[in-house]
Structures are given as structure tokens and as C-alpha cells.
């Protein structure tokens, strides 16, 4: 059984595919997922919330390796979940891929990538979204440099 109807996940597609959040025009704080209003400026932020696309680069602030998972993730265990602090400020939860379990560590620089997230064994629906991977697996030096500089 999936963890919810298909519509619920489709609604979030733009953010999930493109890492689009927003920024408060009043205090410059950034949010992901985007917020209707800035929780700090409230009324003052009305009409001043602007979409921004995050670079996808950030740093792992904590992680775990999941062995006991929900139904739709059974086929992926063990897998790495982490909280990543994006260079632009917001923190997000995502899987880390293209990284050996032995090599994962707090402080590691990572970059976002677009992947299959889960497959509903019941309906067969496949959901896509962001995952992150260590900067040092990127192919060209140019890419690495971009990833590692804030």
C-alpha cells in the first residue's frame, strides 16, 4: 500500500523536480518548501515572497543508514538518509546516493540530482524527485569546483 493518493504527490512536482523555494523580500530568509508567508515577518512579507531556484549544493549536517523501511522502500535498503543544509540556507531531508556507506560523513559537501524516489508496489506508480550525491563523484573538475565552493 502506498503512503497516499497519487494526486497529493503530483501537486508538489515543481518543487520536487526543481528545488524551487522562496525568499522573503522583507528579511531575506529563504524557505524550502516555499511558504505562503514568512513566519518571521508575517504581514510585512505579504506580496513580497519571491520564488527562487536553489543551486542544489549544500552540506550534510546529519545522516542515518536505514535498514528497516516502509513498504515502498524495501527494495532500497540499506540506504542513506540525510539532512542537508543548502548553501542558500534552508535544510532539507533527502537520500544520499552514489556514495559508499563507509564513506558517508557529517560535513560532506553534496549536490542534488534527479532520481526515482519510490515505487508503489500496489499501483505501480513511480515517483521522482531530488536525491543528493557527494561532490567528489562529479565527473569533471569544473563541476567539482563549483560544488565545493560556497
Amino acid at each position, binding site marked *: *500500500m502506498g*503512503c*497516499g493518493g497519487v494526486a*497529493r*504527490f503530483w501537486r*508538489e512536482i515543481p518543487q520536487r523536480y526543481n528545488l524551487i523555494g522562496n525568499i522573503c523580500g522583507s528579511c531575506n530568509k529563504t524557505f524550502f*518548501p516555499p511558504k505562503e508567508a514568512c513566519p518571521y515577518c508575517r504581514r510585512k512579507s505579504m506580496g513580497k515572497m519571491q520564488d527562487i531556484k536553489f543551486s542544489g549544493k549544500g552540506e550534510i*549536517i*546529519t*545522516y*542515518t*543508514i*536505514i*535498514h*528497516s*523501511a*516502509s*513498504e*515502498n*522502500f*524495501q527494495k*532500497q535498503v*540499506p*540506504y542513506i*538518509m*540525510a*539532512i542537508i543544509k543548502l548553501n542558500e540556507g534552508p*535544510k*532539507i*531531508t*533527502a*537520500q544520499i546516493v552514489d556514495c559508499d556507506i563507509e564513506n558517508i560523513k*557529517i560535513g560532506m559537501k553534496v549536490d542534488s540530482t534527479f532520481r526515482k*524516489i*519510490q515505487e508503489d508496489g500496489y499501483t505501480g506508480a513511480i*515517483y521522482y*524527485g531530488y*536525491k543528493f550525491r557527494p561532490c567528489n563523484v562529479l565527473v569533471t573538475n569544473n563541476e567539482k569546483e563549483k560544488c565545493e565552493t560556497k
Partner: protein
Amino acid sequence: MRDVAVIGVGLTKFGELWDKSFRHLITEAGSKAIFDSGIGGLEIDAMYVGSMSSGRFIGQEHIGALVADASGFSHLNIPSTRVEGACASGGLAVREGYLSIASGLNDIVVVGGIEKMNDVGGNAATETLATALDQEWEAFFGATLSGVYAMIANRHMYEYGTTRENLAQVAIKNHANGALNPFAQYQREIKMEHVLNAATVAYPLGLFDCSPVTDGAAALVLCSLEKAKKFTEKPVKIIASGQASDSLALHERRDICTLDSTVIAAKKAYKQANITHKDIDLAEVHDCFTIAEICAIEDLGFVKKGEGGKAVEENITTLNGSLPVNTSGGLKSKGHPVGATGVAQIVEIVKQLRGEADKRQVKDAEIGLAHNVGGSGATCIVHILEAI
């Protein structure tokens, strides 16, 4: 506001109870509490019941009415309300009952908490428990409840030098307490090597760092203090009820290692009771995972942030320590039927304050605290009780 007391408590055995139904469990706990209090059915003004996810666990919603019906009160038409706050559902139900009496609306209220978790398989239970997280921004990507607490643990170890052994010591202590509790799911002691060698659930947490999947129910009878004396010699007064919320997702918190909802709920509770953490003689805290107990004793103010691991190492929180924590065995060893937990914690505190905790009795216990958390800390509720 009027003063409120607990005048009756009831608990079922916790565990994998294949032969007991949801109805069985809640009526067993409820009738024990009613019997213990000496009230009659006609005297009940209202009922509140905490349940996290009866819909997913047993395919039944509308639990408020079901519980009144199963208890034989349908013809009395007693108002009965379900309260939900994930793993804090039980604590929230206690608070609703408390508020309804404190406000003057009701005199006598029965509060129940229940979860029947073993009727679904392990992965389905994991998936249902993950609904306490942010479904769209955590669970969708593969996060589980154990995984989220594991991320708190990993960061706590990184920032404060908390050790794998510190986490294990929480489980060892709670199993030692649970071994003395005939209602506990696991009544056996465990050793360091058991914890360290157990299968990994979510690194760094292993099987023995996790509370189990449990069936069980708990109930209380609450009464205005002025009337309580009519029913019992030993009413236990609820001297504070503090509640707070925070972001659903762990990643949105101010600090990964602090449950601000606990900090705030505790502050409110200490203020209402007009005491400090130093006045607390014992505490039941929400140790759904070993790291959660370490964070709890820090966030409740018993030790400084980052020193929870050391406190456990120094045996401060054992049965004979200066601040016994989870004398019942905690969620770890007593078991964690999520909706029942917050109510069951109060059952233990009341037994301790009445001097009825048997081999687990804390000497001269006068003031006890119960700390119940929903999800990874999006909801927290702290109650403080006093023997009078």
C-alpha cells in the same frame, strides 16, 4: 481554574496480544481505572481517548464513540472524544480531560489511551508510524521515525561526544526497570553486548535502541479535587499541564539536537506548578528511542544540553539514582502502544506517588513528571503530579 486529581488508574499488560481485540483492551483498562476509583458509570461526565492511528492499524475510526459503547455506556449517552497527536495522543487526551474539569465544565472524566499495533505487519507498522513525520517532505523521500531519531543521535554524538555506549546504557537501565514491572512487554534485563551486537534498524540505532511495536491500553479517572476526597484517601493532584508544538519536519527545527517543544512545554509546566526541575523526584520520559531519553533529560532541564549521555553514564537516572527516570521500564521495555503511552506514563507516576510501585518504588516520591512526545518533537506535553 479548579484543581484536578487522578482518583483511579488502570493498565493492561503490554505486548503482542494476539488474543485480545481493541475493544477488549480499552474496556479492560477502563474498568480497572473505574473500579480503582470507586465511581459508578452514572457519575461520568465525559470521556477522552488517545489513539494515534486506529484507522491504519485496525481499520476503525470513530474511536471516541466506540470506546463509550464498548464500555457499556452507550445508553448513558456520555460524550466521548478522540484526541490525536501521534505518539503524544495519550498525553493530549489527559490534558483535554484535565482542562474540562479545571474549567468547571465536568466533575468526573475517564481518560483512555490505546493502540493495537500488531494486527498489521512490521513494514506496515513502520509506514504508519512514519505518518507522524512530515509525509510530503520527510517520509516521501524514505525517512522513517527510527531514521529521524537516528539523525538526532548521530548529530548529538558529533556535537557533544555522546557515545554509542551512552545510548546503550539507556536501554540497559530501562530493561532493568522493566524486569520489575509485571505489565511490561519485555521483563528481562539486557547487557551491553546485546545492544551493541543487535541488528541495525537505522544507524547508529539498533534493535535495542528502539521501543517495540506494542498492543496495550491505559486509563485514568480524573476528578475535581474538591470531590476527589469522597472517593479516595490518596488523590494525586495534577499540578501542571504544559503543551507545545514545533515544525512537523526535523530539518526545519532551530537545532537538530533540541526538542524545543519539550523545552517550552516543561517551562510552562514548571511555571504553573511553581517549582523547578530540582523539585522533581522521578520522571517518565518519552524514550521511543534511546537518544530520545538523552535529549529529554537535557530539554526538561535536568542536565545541561550535551550532558545527557554523561548523566546516564553516571547512573543518575537509575532506580537508585538521584533522579530515577522511566521506573516503569519506559517505552523501551514496558512497550509503546503509541496512543496509550502518555496515559500509561501517568499511571506509573500515580502508582509511585501512592507508594504502590512495589519493587520499583522510589522512596519518598512526592512529585513526578510525565513527558510525552509526538513524532520527532512536533508535539510535546508535560504533566506534573503531586501526592497530597
